[in-house]
């Protein structure tokens, strides 16, 4: 789990020697309120203001991910590399072929997808809950930002982290296994949509969370088991009944298989169903998150 920003980056800007060295309120400047024209006096459309507010949130979230890269980017890459080592040279050769692919080739799409979805989720849940915990979420709540801008701004941050990690893990995977990437556009589309769905899911988790335990419950007790049982390490065709039928209720199974189809050209599930499930989750989570924001659930008394 990503810790709340315990260590942060170095200062980006050197002090400006041309400016007065004052640490006291400066009451001698000539009427600064003239410089700070009210936003209400400026002729900007609300659409343009909403776009700027959204872009500001995206910039802040991406800046956060990059600034604390040892916490956000490095650990999942190391963890996934360990999977490649174990399921490649150590165990993979003993397991043999799975549906005509080496075991490492077979599990790699699932491992990439696992990194994408968990990091998209964790980025949003930790960032938004951190803002709630420190109360600086109020900066956005008192502003004219729409609920949609807030949600999408955080979600793009989560998607950014998920996809960057997915890309890095994918590049590392190419060092261990030969991946044909049969349908590149489909592969990217599934990664993006899965990332969006889990970013929205992380947002909902953060909204209802009241303490740090609440943001670890879902990843530990829901996300990890569903991912492990979601066809990352095996084909559902190998399962006996009733486990095979039960597995069909796991949404992650569809996402992993759609992604595997994009890379290997092989899936246990119909592609249309996978996209249907993804769309359902994206729309459902989006509507719930916006409704919660508008009602102020977990953020307003």
């Amino acid at each position, binding site marked *: 789990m990503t810790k709340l*920003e315990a260590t*942060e980056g170095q*200062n*980006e*800007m*050197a*002090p*400006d020697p041309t*400016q*007065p*060295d*004052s*640490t*006291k*309120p*400066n*009451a001698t*400047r000539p*009427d*600064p*309120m*003239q*410089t*700070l*024209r*009210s*936003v*209400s*006096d400026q002729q*900007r459309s*609300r659409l*343009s*203001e*909403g776009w*700027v*507010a959204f*872009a*500001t*949130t995206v*910039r*802040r979230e991406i*800046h956060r991910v990059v600034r604390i890269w040892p916490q956000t980017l490095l650990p999942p890459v190391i963890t996934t590399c360990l999977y490649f080592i174990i399921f490649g040279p150590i165990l993979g050769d003993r397991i043999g072929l799975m549906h005509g692919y080496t075991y490492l080739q077979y599990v790699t799409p699932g491992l990439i997808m696992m990194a994408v979805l968990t990091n998209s989720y964790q980025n949003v849940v930790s960032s938004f809950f951190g*803002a709630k915990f*420190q*109360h*600086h979420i*109020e*900066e*956005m*709540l*008192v*502003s*004219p*930002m*729409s609920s949609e801008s807030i949600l999408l701004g955080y979600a793009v941050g989560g998607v950014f982290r998920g996809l960057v990690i997915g890309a890095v893990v994918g590049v590392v995977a190419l060092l261990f296994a030969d991946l044909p990437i049969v349908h590149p556009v489909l592969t990217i589309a599934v990664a993006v949509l899965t990332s969006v769905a889990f970013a929205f899911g992380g947002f909902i988790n953060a909204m209802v969370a009241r303490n740090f335990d609440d943001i670890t419950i879902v990843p530990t007790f829901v996300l990890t088991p569903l991912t492990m049982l979601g066809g990352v390490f095996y084909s559902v065709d190998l399962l006996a009944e009733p486990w095979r039928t039960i597995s069909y209720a796991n949404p992650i199974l569809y996402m992993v298989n759609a992604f595997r189809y994009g890379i290997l050209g092989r899936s246990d599930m119909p592609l249309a169903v996978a996209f249907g499930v993804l769309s359902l989750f994206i729309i459902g989570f989006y509507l719930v998150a916006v409704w919660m924001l508008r009602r*102020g659930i977990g953020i*307003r*008394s």
Partner: protein
Amino acid sequence: MSITTPPALRLRGLEKTYANGVQALKGIDLEVHHGEFFGLLGPNGAGKSTTIGIITSLINRSGGSIEVFGIDTNEDLEGAKRLVGVVPQEININQFEQPLHIVAQQAGYYGIPWREARERAGECLRWMGLWDKRATMSRTLSGGMKRRLMIARALVHGPRLLILDEPTAGVDIEVRRATWSLLEEINDAGTTIILTTHYLEEAEALCKQIAIIDDGRIVKNTDTRTLLSQLVTETFVLDPMQALAHAPALPGFATRLREDGSFEVDIARGVGLNKLFHALDHANIQVSSMRNKANRLEELFLGLVEESKERAASTPRPNEVTS
């Protein structure tokens, strides 16, 4: 035909009942006029922060209406929010961000493009004397600097109404005085200010209009001068050259002996101090110093709150049987 300017803030029947059943606000009616420096005073739990929270949309109201410069928040909340800046009671800055980023991001949330947002942020930080700290981590700032950073953040979009919830709580006297000067400067530039404070001297020094809130109701709302003129008596503490054994008898004045040998004198409004000095001369009491027993507004405040509580206690509840 005269054109009437809408007030900076108009509250009508504002009510708030929390989920646990606590009725924090019981129908607040309030008007704050453009350009005013308005003080909202009240004891702990009176409803000050709840009122501020509702105005700034951090707390959902249970009833009533809010207008900001004539914009009804029920009809155009975003439009109303553009006109308001808020400095909350608790420190609520991102401890892991740099001041310049914090203030520039706030401008961005109001739709100000990044380049202009950074220029405005720089301007605000210079104004607050924080320019040299713009690139340091905000968690390393002192308490006073964090307060000023929150004021800079609240000003970056050029609000017409600035709301400050106890902005000088817990800061030293030097920072408090410097903050007062800043707030006066902001108000002089045309920004309407609403201030809640525990420091009654602060309200007396800054606010031209004061409302006192107690138990979720406004118990007084008038200008500071009128409020102070309602003082019936003022109490002074006098230090005699030689400690007294008992309270001196001064014709026309009530006196009480204090433990340290000094004594208190109540002086009715309209009675000149010369009369007191004459009485002291007549009683052959030499006085080395003299001071107000308490802040004048504090005396009045305590009296009004006490009066409000007595009135509430004497009002029969709906389910009580009265004879």
